[in-house]
């Protein structure tokens, strides 16, 4: 019996090699989906059997949920991707050669993200995040249009600077740990770091956190470090948009959380709360305003992702058992919901032949399942019940108002701004006069429906083990 955590890493890596070698795109798509499903299966295995923490790998309450979530979203995305690329191939936007590259990169990205999640070594985690970023850069530029290249380049440069800053922060953490833990590998092992974080040099840890916040925050898409995010979402293939919003942002945020735990464990270190609250609030408000002038449907939802990252960071900034729990819940819910939205939007953009909102209309009439799926997804993402995001936003706003009334009011203003914009566009796209071509699309509705169903269930009932994990992690987050 091989350790599931190894499988979670090995399957994508092996699939990368295999897919790079297979020229047949149909087989490639199938294999991609199969590998993703297998990875998902292995990640579910982690729920049953959790290996002990090693020097490099770690599975604990925090990451087990996200590894499973990663596996699940990747699996559904690969299914969606199969029908999506079929259409792209048919319309000639992509060639089989592109697809071979795309599928290999997809698996490599998955490997990178899984590695970042299960890494117990902050250096390894950094490498993994960089890997995931680079692969997504390549995929964002897949269409080779000037806009796509532009977006990829922007992503690449901003991402690289972010990576560099994160590395500097990582080095500083090592420096802080070295006098306590001793030289060498141990001073980069996260579990060891956490155990000794109490004795670290607090000022050094603070500086490190600033760099890590900016470095990983760039990946998270916090304003004003967000610039790459909308374009990367809008210009890349939609499965990648789904994965970017659904997974990569989470992975970067996850990395940030790991370091926040270190800070929380050190009594002398500065409380990152106010900083995160300020950044989160700025992000929510900014994204809320920016949503109004969006004309591209994918860019619209990219800004919505920025907004949600703001809410999540705000929640973690609030800290306390409720704030942290809400942040974790919001991460999971946003990832499921946003990818569902991108599944729907991707097919709609394909059938309408455009991503311009003004040219899409009345889709609940022409494509009921996709259209109502979009309605449900947007309702969920703006935090309406019976969907899971509601629970998270409920906790964030109520606990924020009890602590910082003014900030909570700011958050609510931001939420309402974003709500107004998203609803406006949703009304245009889903209802009203029918605009754009009407032909049916060969869509795979299963991924979207599966995601929405999960979000729906989570809105009503959360599995007790997950609650227990989240509560434990919330405690560690301080």
């Amino acid at each position, binding site marked *: 019996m091989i350790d599931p955590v190894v499988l979670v890493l090995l399957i994508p890596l092996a699939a990368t090699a295999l897919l790079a070698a297979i020229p047949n795109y149909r087989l490639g798509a199938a294999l991609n989906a199969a590998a993703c499903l297998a990875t998902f299966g292995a990640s579910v295995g982690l729920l049953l059997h959790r290996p002990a923490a090693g020097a490099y790998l770690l599975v604990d309450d925090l990451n087990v949920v996200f590894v499973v979530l990663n596996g699940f979203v990747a699996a559904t995305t690969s299914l969606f991707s199969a029908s999506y690329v079929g259409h792209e191939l048919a319309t000639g936007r992509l060639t089989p050669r592109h697809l071979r590259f795309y599928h290999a990169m997809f698996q490599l990205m998955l490997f990178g993200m899984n590695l970042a999640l299960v890494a117990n*070594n902050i*250096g*390894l985690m*950094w*490498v993994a995040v*960089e890997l995931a970023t*680079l692969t997504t850069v390549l995929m964002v530029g897949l269409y080779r249009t*000037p*806009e796509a*290249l*532009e*977006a990829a*380049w*922007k992503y*690449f*440069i901003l991402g*690289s*600077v972010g*990576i*560099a*800053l994160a*590395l*500097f922060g990582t*080095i*500083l953490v*090592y*420096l802080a740990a*070295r*006098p306590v833990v001793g*030289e*060498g*590998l141990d*001073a*980069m092992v996260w579990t060891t770091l956490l155990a000794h974080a109490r004795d*670290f*040099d607090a*000022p*050094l840890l603070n*500086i490190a956190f600033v760099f890590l916040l900016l470095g990983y925050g760039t990946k998270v898409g916090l304003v004003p470090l967000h610039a790459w995010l909308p*374009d990367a979402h*809008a210009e890349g293939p939609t499965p990648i948009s789904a994965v970017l919003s659904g997974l990569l942002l989470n992975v970067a945020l996850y990395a940030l959380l790991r370091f926040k735990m270190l800070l929380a464990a050190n009594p002398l270190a500065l409380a990152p709360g106010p900083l995160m609250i300020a950044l989160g609030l700025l992000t929510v408000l900014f994204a809320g305003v920016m949503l109004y*002038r*969006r*004309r*591209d449907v994918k*860019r619209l939802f990219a800004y919505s992702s920025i907004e949600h990252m703001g809410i999540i960071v705000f929640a973690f900034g609030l800290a306390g058992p409720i704030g942290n729990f809400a942040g974790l819940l919001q991460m999971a819910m946003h990832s499921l919901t946003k990818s569902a939205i991108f599944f729907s939007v991707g097919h709609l953009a394909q059938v309408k032949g455009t*991503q*311009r909102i003004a040219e899409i209309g009345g889709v609940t009439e022409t494509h009921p399942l996709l259209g109502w799926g979009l309605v449900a997804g947007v309702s969920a993402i703006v935090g309406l019940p019976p969907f899971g995001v509601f629970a998270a936003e409920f906790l964030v706003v109520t606990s924020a108002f009890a602590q910082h009334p003014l900030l909570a009011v700011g958050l609510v203003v931001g939420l309402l701004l974003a709500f107004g914009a998203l609803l406006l566009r949703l009304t245009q796209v889903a209802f009203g006069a029918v605009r754009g071509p009407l032909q049916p699309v060969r869509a795979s509705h299963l991924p979207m429906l599966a995601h929405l169903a999960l979000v729906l269930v989570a809105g009503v009932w959360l599995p007790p083990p997950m609650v227990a994990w989240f509560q434990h992690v919330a405690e560690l987050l301080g």
Partner: protein
Amino acid sequence: MHGLSFDIAHMLAGSLVLVSFLMLYQVRLTALLHVLALHALVLAASVAWQAHIQDAPHLYVTAAMALGFKALLIPWALRRIVFRLGIHREIETVGGIGLTMLGGMALVALSLQVMLPVTAMSDPVAREDIALALSVVLIGLLMMVTRRNAVSQVVGFLSLENGIILAATGARGMPLVVEISVAFSVLIAFIVVGIFLFRIRERFDTVDVGALDEVRGGRA
């Protein structure tokens, strides 16, 4: 011995900051590339010295890479790009050299100030090194922000990265340094290849998405 090694390490790190300033001062691309090579050279020396005093032979690999890749290959490649794009005579900065230099000074002061309260460092070499490395990082970023030209921005990024390598090697016993420097080199290679392939002449600056948006008919 300890005092001497400290002094030499300190001197090398300090020279890196100096070369960074030299970089800020350059307005011509070709000259800038020369200074870049010098920057990498000083870094290589610094890393090699760290390898020596820490008795960490793997750091020699990093030093060698700095020497071979960053001091020779990258400047050469960039030089070719510059000539091919025909921008080797271009001079431009935003805000003027004097102001930039002043900014650089402020950054150095800031990084020293930031590192000042860090007390519990067992070994003062590291602390000073880190402060200087931070200066190099910040100046590199300043360069990226103040220069319009894609090539000079790459140079800025490279110097930023040099600062990080300096920090990494200064951190005694840090694992994965070599791996990280290799990863970084890959990153830089990507950037250079990107510039080369996509002929991103000045896309850092003048070609912006806003202008494209007009053409595309509003894909915002």
